């Protein structure tokens, strides 16, 4: 059983297009995340939702819009794609916000490799 699943695995599209990436977790976790991994393998958080509430919104262009219809799903929509958006996007989840009294390992999906041409 896949714990955190995201689709599609690969996404090749042209500049200016709009695309979405979907993520679902079946772990019963309260918190979900989007991370971006660049060509140098650097991982950076983009957004985080806790029980459908946006709790982390990093300095990301407003062309990126996350949506969480329920706590098991977190989708990422990207408008007007640019060459610089090419990267691997990872969805992740954890049991809670990660407070010091909780054991909250982060579980990642397998990533979506986005290529903008």
């Amino acid at each position, binding site marked *: 059983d896949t714990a955190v699943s995201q689709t599609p695995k690969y996404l090749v599209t042209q500049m200016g297009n709009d695309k979405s990436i979907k993520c679902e977790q079946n772990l019963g976790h309260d918190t979900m995340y989007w991370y971006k991994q660049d060509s140098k*393998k*650097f*991982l950076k958080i983009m957004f*985080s939702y806790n029980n459908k509430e946006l709790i982390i919104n990093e300095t990301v262009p407003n062309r990126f819009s996350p949506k969480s219809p329920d706590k098991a799903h977190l989708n990422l929509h990207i408008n007007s794609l640019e060459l610089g958006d090419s990267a691997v996007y990872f969805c992740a989840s954890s049991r809670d916000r990660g407070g*010091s009294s909780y054991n*909250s*390992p*982060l579980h*990642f999906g397998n990533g979506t490799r986005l290529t903008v041409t």
Partner: protein
Amino acid sequence: GIQVEQSPPDLILQEGANSTLRCNFSDSVNNLQWFHQNPWGQLINLFYIPSGTKQNGRLSATTVATERYSLLYISSSQTTDSGVYFCAVGNYGGATNKLIFGTGTLLAVQP
């Protein structure tokens, strides 16, 4: 914000060798995790270890929070251990309410 440094940046081992990867961080943390990204790109959580020592098979990790470092030990390395190892830290409820990732250690285990 918290700075996270990992060393060494690259490491080549012969199968069967042992290794130690280090993660230094610049501020207090209450969340520290180690991840392995395999050559297929999958990110696997190895340890949640804000303090103390844990072991899982050939892998073990130790975090000394007061001295702001964590170590990941790999014993009797195998080719399947190849990939990038990331340390990530956070201080929830404090100044850094998210996980900050280090730049990783790229490990290649040769047969």
